[in-house]
């Protein structure tokens, strides 16, 4: 038998931070949206907001424009700071395509 041994070309990955912990429930929670304002986000995210408010009457859902919007701004440190300062329990990010 001929044996060929060669390198995996994909390069190692380094996990430096955990994903955010999940919520036990959405009851009474405060939820925000980070929107890139593209790919129909301006229609879909309000629909999600409306449904959250209907399904969880004691929930607080911030307005879609509570934080800076648009691809150029949503990845900025300042946006992350605003999210943190707003005291939300979770954010929904959309839309990617």
């Amino acid at each position, binding site marked *: *038998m*001929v*044996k*060929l*041994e*060669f*390198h*995996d*070309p*994909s*390069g*190692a*990955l*380094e*996990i*430096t*931070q*955990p*994903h955010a912990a*999940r*919520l*036990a*429930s*959405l009851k009474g929670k405060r*939820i925000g949206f980070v929107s890139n304002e593209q*790919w*129909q986000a301006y*229609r*879909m995210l309000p*629909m*999600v907001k409306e*449904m*959250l408010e209907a*399904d969880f009457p004691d929930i607080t859902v911030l307005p879609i424009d509570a934080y800076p919007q*648009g*691809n*150029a*701004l949503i990845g900025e440190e300042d946006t992350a700071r605003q999210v943190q300062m707003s005291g939300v329990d*979770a954010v*929904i990010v959309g*839309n*990617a*395509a």
Partner: protein
Amino acid sequence: MKNAVSGIGLAPDAAMVTFPVNMFLPGSDINPVRERIREIYNGLTLWKSEFAQASGAAKMITVEAPTYEQALDKANNLYLTSLWGDGLPLRPATKERVDWVLQGSTLPRTHVLGKFPPRGGITTVETCAIALAMAGGRPEYLPVLLAAVEACLAAEGFDQLQATSGGPFPAVIVNGPIAKQIRLNSGFGLLGPDPQRPAGASIGRALRLIQQNVGGALPGVGTMAIFGAMRYTNAVFAEDEDNLPPGWQPHATQRHGYAPGTNSVSVVFASGVSNVRRRGAKKETPEEDALNGMWRMADFMRTPNLAVLHGWEKGTPGIMMIAPIVAKQMAKIGWTQQSIREFLWENSKIPMAQLRRAGAPAWFEIDTNPKVRESIALDPWPICMKPDNIVLVVAGGGHPTHSYWLQAHSSPTVPGRVIRVPETFERLLADADRDLGCGDDVCRI
């Protein structure tokens, strides 16, 4: 999205709800959001990452078969099924081959160049040598590849360039004596293929493999390049410095300030090429021939290429390649690099009415750069902020008929890097002469 999250150091998965792309188009039916709202709720509450730890160091893989041919087939099949191939045959990156390629590095194999976006794969000198080995490369090519990788990693917005639907590809301009030394083409057919000057194909293919395998730029998943732009080998070529007209400077000197004779790379992210038939067909004088050709080049450049807005201030709208024989003829009648750029800049301006008709101002308005937003007041609108942004390169075969316009795609900057060669470089070049035949002025035709 998985690339995007792993690129910032999270486990390579995320709580996502995905829909068919037609739901993201204007006027679409968005009711599927309503129907699947529970999945969004679950993403906030029940979702768990499937990746507990990092993938660890790159490992060795083994295939076995009764004959060498069959083992090679198995290796190539494995490259494809693991999503590491490009559809063309590859050379397995064996320890022996990778160690040979690594002779071209001045840096230790474990030296980290950076994390390749968007996936964030750790990119070491060895990672590059593995890709170059797979792409059929040689050790003397490695210094150029390493500099090109460094330049890409330094490029502003490189994570987006890797992932965008526009399908940009790195166009790597090499200056300095290394180009001829390693058989990198600057003449006829410089964008390949060329059996006498194969360096550009191997280096560019290796860079593409790194983009895909380490950076995660897989079609339709990690790179949303709608058309793909024939990106098998990117574009790696040399400027024909030997044939620059008197007084003209190499591209790397003009753009990056490197002293003439410095080995360097300069990277523009291009999205396509247009051939410009510039020569006259009748009894033009040299002056008419030059001017007619310049107008045709400007006409090709005068397009509402909105993808290039990010590079409007400091990047480039593209690379204009003119053949050495044309450059010399134009220089003889008084054209300079500066006057060519100024002509092209002035005459590629677009009337604002045309841009408004095409809905372009919306893209200006959402740009983060205030200078781009303010440029909407310019009428006609210049395709870049200043003439110097246009990359002008003297390269191509000794023939006067055509110029070549490589249109850029969102190149916010044009990064450059000096190429470092090992002390043993002369020996590597001698080995190449032994393996590939005659030296830097190779031509057997």
